């Protein structure tokens, strides 16, 4: 059986409708109109031990709600979640011993006391034996590079340092699963890169299962091998990162800089599987289908007509691919709503 098993998971929120107008508002105080919202709508997936999974989706797509149900913070409306065979909501205490959670937007450390004091309290909280605690403390202070920060109160740390301490805190009790909710939110690129390096190192060394939510696709791309995409509470995509790129990256763009563009204001550049995106007197931008042609063929064709000075080929990155999938999904949903 998989380590995390999610079946037909549904979470509904009841929300009071906020009517327009004062009189209607006053009425709604006594007899509110309730509308139900499906934050998570029949979600299924299974995650094996040691996997690193990116759980992504736009704002309000239900990703935080799913993560909260996986950690046992929220009770599913229907469906089931099994983590190591336990129901995280009902066996919360037992489950909590095996998981670590990193909240990108809130710190779990004590604001006014040195970081090491917070770590010591975690030792008591998770009942970590002294020997194990010392080993882990040493290991993770080294990986996260926080040794000089341990004696500093959290309020004097920068956001990046705070995050590194929070991540180290989540690993002190040897969790089997770690949930990282937006671990790099609000950080500069350098801090983001260093946090990513640290997390992938831990994943390699400890074989900890990771579930990461983030809006930063570089996080997902550098940390995860599998991606689950959720939109409007439904899973739209659950696949290996590599195959997503191949499957959805059939089109690439190629741009030429040249002495003189013979296809500008003249006859059109024609080649099988190629579409002209734009021309100026010195440049030509094309999009081509990888299944029908390749860059060498196009370059030869272009070189026949003019002298090439520079070439630039670009594929779509994972962020663009995901944006495209979501746009299509939203479109399908909207048109089916109309029908």
């Amino acid at each position, binding site marked *: 059986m998989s380590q995390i098993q999610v079946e037909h998971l549904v979470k509904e929120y009841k929300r009071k409708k906020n009517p327009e107008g004062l009189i209607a508002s006053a009425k709604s105080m006594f007899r509110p109109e309730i509308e139900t919202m499906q934050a998570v709508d029949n979600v299924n997936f299974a995650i094996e031990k040691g996997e690193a999974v990116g759980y992504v989706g736009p704002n309000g797509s239900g990703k935080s709600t799913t993560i909260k149900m996986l950690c046992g913070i929220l009770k599913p409306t229907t469906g089931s979640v099994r983590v190591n065979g336990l129901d995280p909501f009902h066996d919360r205490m*037992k489950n909590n011993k095996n998981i670590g959670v990193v909240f990108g937007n809130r710190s779990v450390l004590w604001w006014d006391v040195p970081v090491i004091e917070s770590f010591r309290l975690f030792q008591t909280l998770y009942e970590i034996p002294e020997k194990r605690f010392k080993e882990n403390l040493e290991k993770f202070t080294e990986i996260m590079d926080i040794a000089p920060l341990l004696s500093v109160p959290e309020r004097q740390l920068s956001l990046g340092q705070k995050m590194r301490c929070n991540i180290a805190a989540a690993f002190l009790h040897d969790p089997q699963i770690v949930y990282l909710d937006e671990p790099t939110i609000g950080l500069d690129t350098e801090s983001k890169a260093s946090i990513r390096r640290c997390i992938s190192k831990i994943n390699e060394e400890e074989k900890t299962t990771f579930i990461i939510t983030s809006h930063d696709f570089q996080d997902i791309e550098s940390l995860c091998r599998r991606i689950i995409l959720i939109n409007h509470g439904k899973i739209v995509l659950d696949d290996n990162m590599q195959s997503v790129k191949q499957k959805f990256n059939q089109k690439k763009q190629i741009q030429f800089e040249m002495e003189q563009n013979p296809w500008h204001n003249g006859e059109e550049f024609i080649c099988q599987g190629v579409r002209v995106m734009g021309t100026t007197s010195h440049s030509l931008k094309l999009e081509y289908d990888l299944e029908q042609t390749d860059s060498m063929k196009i370059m030869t064709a272009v070189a026949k007509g003019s002298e090439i000075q520079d070439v630039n080929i670009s594929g779509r990155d994972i962020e663009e691919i995901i944006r495209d999938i979501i746009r299509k999904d939203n479109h399908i949903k909207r048109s089916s709503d109309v029908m």
Partner: protein
Amino acid sequence: MRRLLFYVRLWKGYMRIGFLILTQYPADTVIWIISMLLREASGFLGVVTIAAVAGGLGNWSIYEICLMFSLCAIVEAIGQAFFDNAWGIGHQVRMGRLDVMLVRPASPFIQLLGECFHFQALISMMVYVGLLVFSVLKMNLHVSGGMLLFLAEFLVCGTMINSGLYVIFNSLNFWLVQGNDIAVFVQTCREFAKYPLSVFPLLFRQFFTFVLPFGFVGYYPAAYLAGKMGASIVWQMPMAALCVGGIAFTMWHLGVGSYNSTGT
């Protein structure tokens, strides 16, 4: 038993952090003590002044009133020292901070209380204990072992009733999101408990006995010590404490069960 030891260790850990925080801000500590003494004293001075001019309230002498006030204030000080974060429930719910407590392997209620200590309150408590001793001496009461036992019983039950009521009404924040107003209203009602309830109409007395049993944190035990009441209080007080404690426990658990987190 193992679980109990775990919570004792955990509580000690939280107290350690609480104490470290206290030492970080010495000026804040002093200001806090003064403001809390003033808050408790302001209501009290009014009563004492009236009593001093009129030579007592009803059949209560000024020293008996002092005794009642000191009992009331000691219990509040204990609550402030160890259970003050009951007043933080609303904040924790609104900020979604409860999420953090719910993913740890310990009771979220203990974690909530452990987040915030006001050890300063123990210093202001010394002032009230002084007042208690002073009034007992002035009333020429015979200090016996039984009396000390009763005071110990009162400390436990009184704290449970006082802080329990705060937990009950602050737990409303789980459903109301803006439920603090009701809890503040309850605390304002508590001001009445600083008067001898016998001077109020019967309806008031019943309200402070059966609905908001603040009568047990000052009036009833003081009346018993002053010999104005029979010994039935000795078993009535734990009954009231168990009721309040039970309701507080239920309210908190229902609240956590219906907790919906925030949209982050």
